[in-house]
């Protein structure tokens, strides 16, 4: 589906490029009916430039390509972030960094344990219980049981 859409779009752009080439002064060459190879080559070059101009103005970087996934450039920060995340693997994180993450995790768990008994956290838990939700993820602490679950 996507491929067909892209092709039709590029055909459309091609016909528009011809129209603009004629409207923008190309008709003088066309009317003179010259068969010289040089003039034809010059017209072709002119068309190609206009097509490129049209397509870059519409955000397409490569007019001949069909696949949008390969040619889509990351222009927004969020796209660059997504590309960064996509390129990361477990091997990309070194051992010393993993130890640092573990330290921060331990720190966070300590903070969570420190919150036990606070009324606000009980209230939030009451809201979570009242609204329900599909039972697939663990809450770390249950006020009623007094248990804090670290391991999951």
């Amino acid at each position, binding site marked *: 589906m996507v491929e067909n859409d892209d092709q039709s779009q590029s055909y459309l752009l091609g016909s528009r490029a011809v129209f603009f080439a004629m409207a923008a002064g190309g008709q003088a060459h066309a009317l003179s009916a010259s068969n010289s190879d040089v003039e034809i080559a010059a017209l072709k070059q002119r068309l190609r430039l206009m097509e490129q101009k049209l397509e870059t103005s519409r955000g397409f970087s490569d007019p001949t390509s069909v696949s949008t996934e390969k040619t889509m450039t990351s222009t927004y920060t969020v796209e660059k972030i997504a590309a960064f*995340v996509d390129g990361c693997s477990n091997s*990309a994180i070194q051992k010393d960094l993993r130890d640092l993450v573990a330290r921060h995790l331990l720190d*966070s768990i300590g903070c969570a344990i420190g919150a036990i008994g606070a009324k*606000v956290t009980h209230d939030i838990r009451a809201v979570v219980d009242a609204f329900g939700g599909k039972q697939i993820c*663990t809450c770390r602490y249950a006020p009623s049981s007094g248990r804090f679950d670290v391991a999951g």
Partner: protein
Amino acid sequence: MHPHRGGLTSPDRAAHYNGCLVRYLDFMDAYLRPDEVNHPCDNIMAILAAAEHMGGSGEDFVTAVAIAYEIQNRLLDLPTMRAHIVRRHWLSR
């Protein structure tokens, strides 16, 4: 409710509740820039819920936390619109 756990709920609510537990004392880790601060540990419980839901390994979890810390802290390094507000706040004292 599971007898050995704090109970089960949906990933977003688990992230909400566990995140509130981490946040409540306001003692959690912080990344400081001039006129700015963020608390990247807010990512941890959200990632934990996502990892549990997806059946991710501990290694995956640590990788995701490292990535989240990297991104959030880099975003704080970007020019801020809050700087002016902070400065005005200090002047009005």
